[in-house]
């Protein structure tokens, strides 16, 4: 690539977005904040002509590890792309720009009795572009499924500056889902500028309940028994006894027992039906109704910003329904064998399975042993890769981005 003087690129960026939206960064790059999709396209086109790398920056909630590729860097911040472009209340669709955060969108929808859905609010603190572009296990809801399933269409800028808009339809049979190619691609296939998302009416009723079960195994069984009966809860969380003791001071479960918190939502009859199905399942597994005040606390911590007792979990493991119990026991045993204490909760249930969050004491050797144990038991560690498919992803990127300017280093 021709080595242009750095000043030339900076001037061009200033022409593209206005000088006040270009600032130099410490690593010989610039942080630019385009105000429209057209400006994003202009920035990418100009960066490309200088052989500069383009890195998307949302709210910055995710620490970016960017390898030094020795070329100039342009960080494109989406913070000025914060508009709702269209709200289609008839179809329950919203077209939003990438820089708006999930919580900001939720605040816009709330007065209209609409909601983005029962996703964990901690996920929604990110920009929507970030939520869509990066896959992490938290982005799921027992009621609505994986966040990507709410994405009906995506607009993105390709490496050559072309803007693509994937076709918006409830479902299609016109080839691959091209929006899903952009989702999770971490800005390597296209820079997401806006997306059309499915939204929901606020549920008519919301019920929470808590249950005590003889063991974590029994709690997992009760959850899947209820899901078999087609209960569709909006939230579920299983605490083991140690985690429950940590999260709810007053609560002392017998050793080995488990606490299950469940939220159901929807038309009142359905929310009640779902709660009763969960209750029946719990009783069938030898448990009983617990103190609902605990479930209220759980829900408020999740959705009303009440602080959750720290520290943050040391390890997240995704497991399919059949592997949840083996993974739970394997990690606990591994931690114990390494001389550490370990506690856990399991949540984020969806069709793929659920996520177990472990918190343990001890250093890196405990973490390494726990990760090994989790994988051996059939769990998936966060950020796993389908390595065999890397060559295909590389080839696909090479076609769209022969100069390799789109977030290089990602998936490396």
């Amino acid at each position, binding site marked *: 690539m021709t080595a242009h003087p750095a000043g030339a690129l900076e001037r061009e960026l200033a022409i593209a977005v206005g000088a006040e939206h270009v600032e130099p960064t410490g690593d010989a790059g610039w942080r630019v904040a385009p105000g429209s999709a057209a400006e994003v396209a202009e920035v990418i086109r100009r960066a490309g002509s200088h052989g500069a790398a383009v890195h998307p920056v949302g709210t910055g909630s995710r620490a970016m590890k960017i390898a030094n590729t020795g070329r100039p860097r342009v960080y494109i911040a989406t913070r000025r792309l914060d508009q709702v472009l269209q709200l289609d209340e*008839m*179809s*329950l669709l919203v077209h939003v720009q990438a820089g708006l955060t999930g919580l900001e969108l939720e605040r816009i929808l709330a007065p209209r009795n609409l909601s983005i859905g029962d996703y964990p609010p901690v996920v929604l603190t990110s920009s929507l572009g970030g939520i869509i572009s990066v*896959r992490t*296990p938290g982005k799921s809801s027992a009621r609505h499924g*994986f966040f*990507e399933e709410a994405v*009906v269409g995506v607009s993105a800028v*390709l490496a050559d500056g*072309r*803007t*693509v808009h*994937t*076709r*918006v*339809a*409830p*479902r*299609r*049979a*016109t*080839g*691959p*889902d*091209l929006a899903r*190619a952009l989702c*999770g691609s971490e800005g390597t*296939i*296209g820079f997401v500028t806006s997306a059309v998302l*499915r939204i929901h*009416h606020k549920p008519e009723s919301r019920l929470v309940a808590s249950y005590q079960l003889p063991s974590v195994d029994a709690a997992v069984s009760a959850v899947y028994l209820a899901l*078999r*009966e*087609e209960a569709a809860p909006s939230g579920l969380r299983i605490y083991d006894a140690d985690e429950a003791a940590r999260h709810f001071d007053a609560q002392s479960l017998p050793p080995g027992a488990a606490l299950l918190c469940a939220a159901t939502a929807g*038309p009142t*009859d*359905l929310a009640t*039906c*779902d709660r*009763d199905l969960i209750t029946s399942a719990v009783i069938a597994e030898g448990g009983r109704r617990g103190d609902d005040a605990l479930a209220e606390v759980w829900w408020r911590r999740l959705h009303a910003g009440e602080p959750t007792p720290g520290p943050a979990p040391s390890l997240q493991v*995704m497991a*399919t*329904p059949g592997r949840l119990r083996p993974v739970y026991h394997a990690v606990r045993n591994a931690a114990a064998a390494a001389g550490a204490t370990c506690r856990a909760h399991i949540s984020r249930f*969806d*069709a*793929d*399975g659920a*996520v177990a969050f472990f918190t343990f004491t001890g250093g890196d050797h405990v973490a390494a042993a726990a990760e090994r144990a989790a994988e051996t038991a059939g769990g*998936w*560690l966060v*950020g*796993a890769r*389908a390595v065999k*498919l890397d060559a*295909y*992803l590389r080839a*696909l990127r090479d*076609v*769209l981005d022969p100069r390799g300017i789109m977030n290089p280093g990602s*998936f490396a």
Partner: protein
Amino acid sequence: MDSDRLQRELEAIVGARRVSMRPIDLDTYARDMWPRLLLAHREGEPPAHRPFAVVWPEHVREVVAIVKKARELRIPIVPYGGGSGVCGGAVPLHGGITIDTKRMQALRWVRGDELICDVEAGLSGERFERELARRGYTFGHFPSSIYCSTVGGWLATRAAGQLSTKYGKVEDRVAGLTVVTGRGEIIETDGPNRALRGPSWTQLLVGSEGTLGVITSARLRVSPAPQLKVFRGFEVDDVTTGAHAIRRVLQRGLRPAVIRLYDELDTLINSLGSGGSSADTVHVEDTRAPVPPIDTGALPAWPEAAPEAAGVVERLMNLARGKGLRQGALHAALGRSHLVNKLAGTVAEKIARRGCRLVVGLEGARIRTEVEAALTFGELEAAGARDKGEDPGWAWLAHRYAVSYRMSPVFRDGAFVDTMEVAASWERLMDLYDAVRAAIGRHAVVMAHFSHAYADGCSIYFTFAGTAPDARAAERVYDAIWRDGLEATTRVGGTISHHHGVGALKAPYMAGEHREAMAIFEAAKASLDPDGILNPGKMGLRVRIDRSQP
């Protein structure tokens, strides 16, 4: 490279018994159920495109070897499942090797605790469901082609079953795919969406219609077999009211297994075609709109103003009743399509006071299904639908696979019939209905039903029937119908296919559907099939191979 050598090469891979270059096999695999090809076939014309060879692999390793060989020889590969596709997706436009997947047909395992099964691509839909039912599960995918389509075909085209409103389309039910790419490598896309970084390879490969890879097996999500089924018929004044009622149900978070709304002409034809006498008995009891008794035999009197139209519709209804028609009578009916189309919206409705039929069915776990059914029926009535009891619902269920089979007499009698399934968001749905009806109505008799509903939109299934003096003229009318119908769809912001796929039929309209986003599809093509050997000429992708001889 001559035919003999190709035969030897393929026999070395799968053995002599599972390779054929016999003319009768090549003719058979020259087409699927694309109606346009049936027009020429009816006239006794030889197929325009035939494969060089047909192979029946039994293992993914054999598929790999065949693809590698084809890559080496630069010969196209066309995957073939049940051959029930209606868009020409399995037609070997550039010759090549047709891989029939039907000998890969094992249901390898069903994991009850995970609600996932592993099934090979060539298993027929009906046998798949039966195998699952024996174990207490269902895949919930019931297309009217279930007896003649394969699991692999469903995945390749993003198919939908009639109960998709509850169970989802096939792409909603895939946990992982095993695919042989155009590089001759096996890839597996399994793994939880949320834990794996990178784009969804599963969603890139589902619906690629053999242009990115040959699907050889899949991990699919199953559901427990339903404990309870509830079906019910309703009647609404018009399609707008009906569509509104469906939207209310879906947006309240209710998921009936099926909810279908027939427009006036489809209501008329369908009730007679399925021998729906029970539904008609209910009509007679409708005191708000007294009409002469309607049963399967007696039509109401037509007003003097439209005697000609009455005759046309009567002939069509005779056809629907399965009585068959003399060829002349059929042509007379279809030749005056404008009259029939007009009738559908005005005269028929006024005379018969039938309104539009709406069928709804729920199935699943006993308690939740009961609760959801009560809420669903209540929502429909609140939206102005009139409850017609269980019989119309069960009548639909009993005849649900029959519709496709009613098409063949029409072809036998020299006319043609086809279906166009498009979809849009609720906001655009009635625009879509009006635009496509107007576009097709210029050329043929058209009727429609709304099925496959979602919280954000719905699919419309248009059925059209037309006629022309000869096969060439029929092809011209047929092409004009598709051109006008699909252009109208794109214009109002709908998608040109909800579940039949693209194939050769809709390939010319893919640029309008995806515009610049086709670049991503082309990039995936270049990555997965660098030599362009997989199903060339389909889906609007650039053709990089041209072979008319082996």
